């Protein structure tokens, strides 16, 4: 028992010397974070590659063909990779690969690619095709652009190369490659029927139907949604996306590049939004309303009022139910480690509504500015971390004695091994976490995991309670049996 008790103490993570400036404890020294830096060779990084970034962004475009040009793995691991729901076609949920073999690597895979495209386009008649480049393609020098151009001419649909060679960096570069690919579609559709009060929902992927929730809010406000980019995405919507008057951009990296391109190409302004957490959702909706009130006052009469009414209505259902859950969660501690830092901001605020404090916050791909802002809204002592590895995460979780970890697939079992709750706020979430209803779902999920009786059977935490509470000086088995 003494051994276990010792483990609860402030045991610090073994940290690479080179990584020290990617970790900051708020209140300890001046804020400085070195970010957007390549992971150290030999690190057990939680990051992924360029291809992964492109694939997850474009994946939800449901009526496009997504062909991975490379060895089988890249296609196999991204087959039906995230729960990006479609209201119609499901072509995106199939896995297509040129399955490059040794001979292709020696002699080039261009012919194979052309043949694969011919067969697939004839059979599935997609609205467009995305062809993803992988590490090996970058190396053997297949001219993806030329093959795509020729296929496009043969079949009369856009065949778009995605320059997503894995080694070119991390997911960020992949987002950019995806945006460049989408840019070729934008501007090619008829926009004559689009309302001046219109937007594109960007950086939302319709996981568990989240785009639909946001679309519903906007529709109730009287705003037309031209395209989900890429949630419930369609090729024709992307083609018309330049007809929207405003781009709503969520997610730090994924689609912001496209928003900037559309601003430069078509003069469409964009606002950064977040559909996670009460304040952020409300603020995002008000931003939209105010934008149109300012730019199109003649059309936007009553828009702000309608927005206020919507927010009021949603909050009146949400708040009482949130209060019930908060009673149990008050004072619990959370760790947040997510892909992009925008989500981290919203989660810090969302946890406050549950009476919980975020004591560890980090992301795979945040920028220094992101982390600086994060540090400003978190309490002293909070650990801010960029590109963490499992050992660090594990040590931080123990040091801060958190009750729940918010992360993705690779972090889930780490949290569970340590005996703390978990909430998947990544690709594999099964319930909608956006919008006001998403806040309630989030609260329920946090409650379900934090309050689970299973944690009472975890040796580390059980002993911890015993140490802090001398009145229950029982052994591990005895307290376990209390349940």
């Amino acid at each position: 028992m003494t051994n276990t008790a010792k483990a609860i103490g402030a045991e610090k993570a073994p940290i690479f010397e080179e990584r020290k400036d990617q970790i900051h404890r708020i209140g300890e020294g001046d804020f400085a974070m070195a970010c957007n830096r390549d992971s150290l060779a030999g690190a057990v990084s939680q990051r992924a590659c360029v291809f992964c970034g492109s694939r997850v962004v474009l994946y939800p475009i449901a009526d496009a063909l997504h062909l991975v040009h490379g060895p089988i793995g890249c296609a196999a691991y991204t087959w039906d990779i995230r729960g990006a729901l479609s209201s119609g076609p499901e072509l995106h949920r199939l896995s297509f690969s040129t399955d490059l073999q040794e001979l292709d690597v020696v002699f080039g895979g261009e012919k194979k690619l052309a043949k694969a495209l011919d067969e697939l386009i004839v059979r599935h008649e997609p609205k467009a095709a995305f062809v993803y480049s992988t590490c090996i393609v970058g190396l053997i020098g297949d001219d993806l652009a030329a093959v795509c151009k020729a296929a496009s001419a043969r079949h009369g649909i856009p065949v778009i190369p995605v320059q997503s060679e894995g080694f070119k960096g991390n997911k960020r570069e992949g987002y950019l490659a995806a945006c460049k690919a989408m840019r070729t579609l934008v501007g090619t559709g008829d926009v004559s029927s689009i309302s001046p009060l219109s937007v594109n929902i960007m950086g939302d992927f319709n996981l568990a139907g989240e785009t639909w929730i946001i679309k519903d809010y906007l529709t109730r406000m009287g705003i037309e949604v031209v395209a989900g980019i890429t949630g419930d995405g369609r090729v024709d919507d992307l083609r018309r996306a330049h007809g929207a008057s405003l781009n709503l951009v969520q997610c730090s990296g994924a689609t912001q590049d496209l928003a900037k391109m559309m601003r430069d190409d078509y003069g469409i302004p964009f606002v950064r939004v977040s559909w996670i957490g009460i304040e952020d959702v409300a603020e995002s909706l008000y931003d939209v309303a105010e934008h149109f009130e300012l730019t199109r006052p003649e059309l936007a009469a009553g828009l702000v009022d309608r927005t206020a009414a919507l927010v009021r209505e949603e909050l009146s259902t949400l708040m009482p139910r949130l209060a019930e859950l908060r009673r149990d969660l008050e004072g619990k501690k959370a760790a947040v480690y997510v892909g992009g830092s925008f989500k981290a901001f919203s989660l810090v605020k969302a946890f406050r509504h549950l009476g919980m404090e975020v004591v560890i916050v980090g992301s795979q791909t945040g920028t220094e500015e992101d982390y600086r802002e994060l540090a400003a809204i978190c309490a002293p002592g909070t650990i801010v971390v960029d590109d963490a590895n499992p050992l660090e995460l594990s040590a931080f979780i123990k040091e801060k004695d958190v009750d729940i970890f918010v992360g993705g697939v690779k972090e889930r079992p780490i949290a569970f091994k340590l005996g703390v709750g978990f909430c998947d706020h990544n690709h594999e979430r099964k319930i909608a976490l956006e919008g006001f209803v998403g806040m309630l779902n989030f609260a329920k999920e946090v409650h379900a995991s934090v309050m689970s009786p299973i944690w009472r059977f975890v040796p580390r935490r059980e002993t911890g309670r015993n140490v802090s509470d001398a009145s229950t000086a029982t052994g591990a088995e005895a307290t376990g049996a209390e349940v």
Partner: protein
Amino acid sequence: MLLRHTPKEVTERSALVINPAKTCQPIGAMYAALGIHGCLPHSHGSQGCCAYHRSALTKHYKEPVSAATSSFTEGASVFGGQANLLQAIDNIFTVYEPEVIAVHTTCLSETIGDDIKQIRDKADKQGSIPKGKHVIYCNTPSYVGSHVTGFSNMVKGMTEVSESTGKKNGKVNVIPGWVEPSDMEELKRLAALMNVPITLFPDTSGILNGPLSGEFKMFPEGGVTMKELKEAGDAIGTLALGEWCSADAARNLDAKCKVPCRVLDMPFGLKATDRFVDSLRTIAGTSVPEEITRERGQLVDMISDTHQYYYHKKVALFGDPDQLISMVEFLVSIDMWPVHVVTGTPGAKFEKRIKELTAHLPFEVNVKAAGDMFLLHQWIKNEPVDLLIGNTYGKYIARDEDIPFLRWGFPILDRVGHQYFPTVGYKGGLRLLEKILGLILDRKDRDDSESVFELTL
């Protein structure tokens, strides 16, 4: 209908895989390496590969999976990855302190032409490998073979450390192939019952099916030790389970250390388990204890109790060659009809073996190596089946065609149990039967009209 895009008519495809029944080599190497005690697998390539493999293994086992990566960038891809790997080896031993690093390559580093042995030797010369610690490696080009090939290559890499002292140690090497940690545990149990001292490698039991301890251990208890691997060269014999997964390693031990080997099918089902038990008995010169005979008797008993339900039921299977060969044999032995068999892994020998196992059946089995799930679905559309067996990716076909579906193989992303309940051996045979029978009878109960809906089996 998720797979509404699958037409019934089968046409020749040469340039395209749709819905793969395989993945690439490195993940097999990573899984194998996790079966060494204190081992950190290392992916010599881009970050994405490592992240995907860790995610896939994590989803299958619901356990943390740690592995490091050389984190290739554009520079490394032009000038070679030597600097990255040297730095990685240094960093890993400094911070994570594993006993051994098991390096596998990727399509990227293979195409660049990095010489892992030379880099490893250089790291050694530089003093980056602490005394008593190890770096083993294998080549796993993603554009050759499949995940199974990668597994086999890493297991062969393990035998590179084996040495022969000239004095036999009385132990038997058992190379289990790509089976679950629960299966590895079961193989050890059977060997212990027979009083045969074995070295099982790789051995992921304890590592990928560990208990909740309240602690995160990067290197959980369990796994074959480097010492045991070294001593594998002094074993009296090797049993390699599965031609695709295990034979190369066994033959390497034979060539290097003169350890005679026998390549068997993986012990799934009655007959293959019989052969495994008998081989273990003959190599070690022991006899089969009553307890194992009893387990065998129970399996035969259960088959006899329920055989009428299996009679000529048509089955479609997909997965990896070694597993499918034993499963087809098992299905045939209980009078089921495997009509469609697909593996994504290439190898003409596979098709030949399946045809031999089904030669006496009154139909010609559809079998394909280097096939995919799209083809399997097309076959099923042309000749419907009563049962589908394979990994989680079969659920689309099972749903669209409304077929009872047994999840068996890698990966299983949407169910648990494979970590804990073996399907090898006689006990494992019981579990397979229980599952198959349950699926068949649940379907019967679902579809029976009220008038014939029955209470009793």
